[in-house]
């Protein structure tokens, strides 16, 4: 279980970092999504890995429980990253449609050139 989660986080992060370093916006956005998946899995692990236990403390007897806070954090993180991915897709689409170029680098302008509106 530990090996599975740890390698999942590691592989997702490595793939995400690789994709973010690409020059075109679509792989970059994919890389961002992979990174957010990695961080979501990582957040689960911060509450220690417990399987099949309820997120409830029992004050009458010693039973296994899982930490509920990371689950709440992950839920928040998922919602935020989902929204953010939508925003970045829209902005990247806007940039692509207005310049017909999906590179993430800004082209250099000549001095005194008027801005193309």
């Amino acid at each position, binding site marked *: 279980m530990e090996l599975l989660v740890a390698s999942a986080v590691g592989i997702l992060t490595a793939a995400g970092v690789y994709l973010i370093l690409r020059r075109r916006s679509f792989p970059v956005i994919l890389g961002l999504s992979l990174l*957010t998946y990695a961080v979501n899995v990582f957040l689960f692990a911060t509450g*220690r890995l417990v399987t099949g236990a309820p997120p409830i403390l029992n004050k009458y007897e010693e039973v296994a429980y899982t930490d509920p806070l990371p689950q709440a954090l992950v839920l*928040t993180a998922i919602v935020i990253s989902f929204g953010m991915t939508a925003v970045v897709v829209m902005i990247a689409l806007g940039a692509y449609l207005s310049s017909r170029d999906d590179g993430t680098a800004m082209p250099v302008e000549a001095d005194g050139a008027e801005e193309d509106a």
Partner: protein
Amino acid sequence: MEHLLIAPVVLPALVAPFIIMVLRHHLDLQRIFSLASAVLLAGITLALAAQSADGTVKVYELGDWPAPFGIVLVLDRLSAMMIVLTSLLALPVLLYAIGSNWDTRGANFHALFQFQLMGIMGAFLTGDAFNLFVFFEVLLIASYGLMIHSGGTRRFQAGVQYVVFNLLGSTLFLFALGTLYSVTGTLNMADLAVKVAQIPAEDTALLRVGAVMLLLVFAIKASLLPLHFWLPSAYANAPMPVAALFAIMTKVGAYSILRIYTLVFGPEVEATAGLTESWLLPAAMLTLGAGAIGVLGSKKLGRLAAFGAIASMGTLLIAISLFTQTAAAAALYYLVHSTLAAALLFLVADLVMERQGQWILPQLPMPQTGLISALFFAAAIALAGMPPLSGFLGKLLVLDATRGAALAPWIWGVILLGSLITIIGMARAGSLLFWKGHGLPQRAAEEPGYTAAETAPPPALAFVACFGLLGGLVALTVFAGPATRYAEATAAQLYAPSAYIDTVLGRTAE
């Protein structure tokens, strides 16, 4: 009245959806509600500042959950100062956006503006590290919308870079918070401070990793070299009134560094001692140098202002990175000054750009050259840190506070040389823009491109906003005595965090 503490977050959070849903097609009503909200916000933040001026720490428990379990908002002198600064910055920026008709050039300017204010206010008030992340995201998602307001190819391209860089920062923020939570089991800042101090020295490897990752996140926000690459093209291509509001966003990063690394990873915590100081100071000096050289090398007015903002962040972070009480007091005074000065420079840059384009080239004298050049002169003096405006006093305080530091000769050299380069850069831009144009042959009135819009008098509101910011700088200079006393009291409170921790965790009764 205890609910007043959450009002700076709730008010814009209510006004923004109201503007979107009810007033979507009524620009005048949008303007009225947005302005009314900003004025009300200024009143609320001033009332809160009055409450916290005597050094009491006020806590607002959301949902009445006690501190380590629920989310708390905390108001101390630092938070109060930052929210007052935000609301006093928002007012002239909003006036300018209305006066220059920037808010008509795209949809939903006022709603996004209010959401942006909500995020900034929340980030300054929250006492919970994860809640800080959430408010960062609120202010960022509003800033993405504002950044690409009114569209345009280059603005979208710069927007993509800005959003991607900040999404990376957010991911890193989550990794840092997860690491800290796995070590301490809490995310409440006061509780973190207690838990971090109790961790045995041999178990602190992960804690140090978390602390450094968190510092990286805040360094991205504060545009610390080498994490500043997002700022110049983002600010230079954003609508200038929006960039003026963004002047407070880099300060959110500076505030977070100041808050977390005095409260949680304070100077007396052995596990992280020396970790931040040794990296932050050289990076801050490089930031100042890069900003100053950027000012000198800018070909566009927007980039000039953006690099000016980076240079001022460098000075600010130098003062913060010493982590002493006197340096923190100097940093706080300079923080207020540099926010107002950078915002003023962005607004003046917009006045020029609206009339003769974004390039720093000799051009024909524009309408109101005298007034605009005077404003540019004032903004340049303020940002470069020349007398008589408050930038000079701020830099003097920073220099004075760094006297005892080990690297003092280096700090003095970098700050003074950086100021000199900034002055040269500003003087070059100003003389090119306002003086060189007088020798050019006059353009005929019927020539294409010489439209009526260029000669039409601009709305007075834009100038009122600029003079409002300038008035703020003058007031900061004239009332430097009370302002520095407040900054010193704030720094003293920051470096005695036990009152903050005890109040948040409800231990005052014992």
